[in-house]
């Protein structure tokens, strides 16, 4: 040890106050009671909100894209499908709401995959918290994004002449139903996000699934106009049922069975894919 008795001071000696502040901060503090499940999940939801605050461009996919979709599909297809854009608007607007929000669920998987490449996930995984909290929290944060996207679509629709018979209450109920379904569906993409190697792979695989699921539904066209085989698929596609239920809620003639099917599908997706995602996340 005789070779290392003194050292060239490369750090200016800390002042006495700094040293004291360090000692005080490092002094053992009593451990608070463990965070509850909802406290931990909300903290992760807050993390999601902060990211949006620091990088507001993240909201582009729930603001600009829906505006594009509404304008494009209404004016492109309205005349051909319903004879006029104003007549088509009543049909397509709830559909575009469904489509836009379901598209956004893919980003939950992409965001999770991006997160995994960062060291902070190791810290989260070594914390004594409710195991699904990081995932549930992130998805709770995402539901706020869905709400923003839904609001943009509805406000634009109203400006274009969309008049839902069930009023604001009906619109909010429809939006809530779509968000609940999106929450369930996003677990599929978080599972994908943990299984695939890169955010790009998640994006590609995700849209490969979500494109046919949304386009082969009654979002744009009435199923009666379709060939038999396709019509049969479209009729049982949960996205069709969700779109029908949303139209019903906005127009005040919703079918309770449709709503139940949507809720049951969301519950089933959550029951299967939430535990799967949680296990994959913990495994690292």
């Amino acid at each position, binding site marked *: 040890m005789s070779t*290392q008795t*003194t050292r*060239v001071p490369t750090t200016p000696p800390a002042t006495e106050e700094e040293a004291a502040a360090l000692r005080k*901060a490092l*002094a053992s503090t009593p451990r608070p009671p463990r*965070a509850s499940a909802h406290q931990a999940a909300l903290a992760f939801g807050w993390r999601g909100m902060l990211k949006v605050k620091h990088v507001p461009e993240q909201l582009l996919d729930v603001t600009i894209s829906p505006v594009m979709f509404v304008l494009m599909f209404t004016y492109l297809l309205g005349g051909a499908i319903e004879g006029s854009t104003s007549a088509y608007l009543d049909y397509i607007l709830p559909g575009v709401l469904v489509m836009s929000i379901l598209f956004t669920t893919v980003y939950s998987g992409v965001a999770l995959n991006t997160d995994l490449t960062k060291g902070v996930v190791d810290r*989260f995984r070594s914390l004594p918290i409710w195991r699904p909290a990081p995932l549930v929290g992130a998805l709770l944060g995402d539901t706020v994004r869905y709400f923003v996207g839904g609001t943009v679509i509805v406000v634009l629709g109203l400006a274009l002449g969309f008049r839902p018979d069930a009023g604001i209450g009906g619109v909010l109920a429809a939006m809530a139903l779509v968000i609940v379904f999106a929450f369930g569906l996003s677990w599929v993409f978080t599972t994908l996000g943990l299984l695939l190697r890169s955010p790009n792979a998640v994006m590609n695989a995700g849209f490969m699934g979500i494109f046919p699921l949304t386009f082969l539904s009654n979002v744009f066209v009435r199923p009666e106009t379709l060939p038999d085989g396709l019509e049969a698929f479209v009729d049982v596609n949960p996205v069709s049922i969700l779109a029908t239920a949303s139209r019903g809620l906005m127009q005040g003639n919703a079918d309770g069975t449709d709503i139940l099917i949507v809720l049951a599908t969301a519950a089933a997706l959550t029951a299967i894919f939430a535990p799967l995602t949680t296990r994959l996340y913990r495994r690292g």
Partner: protein
Amino acid sequence: MTSQPPTAIEATGLVKSFGDTRAVCGVDLTVRRGTVYGVLGPNGAGKTTTIRMLATLLRPDAGSARIFGHDIVRDAEQVRELVSLTGQLASVDEDLTGHENLVLLGLLLGLKRAEAKARAIELLAAFGLTEASGKLVKHYSGGMRRRLDIAASIVVTPQLMFLDEPTTGLDPRSRNQVWEIIRTLVAGGTTILLCTQYLEEADQLADRIAVIDRGTVIAEGTPAELKASVGSGALRVRLLDPEQRPDAAHVLERELGASHLEPDPAALSAPCADADRGAEAIAELARTGIRVAGFSLGQPSLDEVFLALTGHPAEEPDDEQAIDLQEERAA
């Protein structure tokens, strides 16, 4: 606290493979509470995998480990309440500010929002980060990031802290700051498992060291024991003129039987157990016109320990070592 067992970590036969690669092949460790335990080894030796198993992030393929008596697989939740991890990749969220990072962790550890905020402000001040508290972490320097990382690990004081290469890539000034923080933490009673590839770091901080190579512990003991197990001692010489090093090597070989060129182009060393013979060798250098900037006589460095134990050097020579040698010269 006093009811805690005296052993912080007790690991036996830990094994972990990734595909065909056996990253860890039977690691045993015993770490007493309140000490710093150094795990020393080159890149890829299995240090990080070992830490990740002990921190409950990876499940071992074989073997077992207890943290303060709790099994890392069966009682993982209890283990997580006692440990904190500072990973090799900085374990903080780059897209949040320093303040937000610490508040988030406070909330996750069960603090109320007001308490979490107060704790964040206190820690930022203690770690010299008050001015940067509102800046996004991605704009922090390496040293600031490491300090925030360590602050994040002690939002609630852990019983056991895993530090995975806490100073890799830091400049000497930041490195010394991190060392001071570690010393203060230990003085406060925290046990630390320190993984490092810097021999000097283990020597400076650790009470005991395990040298790990290719997934197994190849030597264990106090820094002094490790050095003693390798050889008697060495004379280290630093020259004013690196051009004279070959001549100096000849003189040392004649006087002391062997010589070894150090990474610093102006430095060399020779085995030397006897101070008188060392002094004669220095005098002989002076007589032959070789100008000596400084010399020291002491136990072998951990570099030499590693070479002797593994047959290959611990790491490529780099600037860090050159700085170490300059600092040694002042001794």
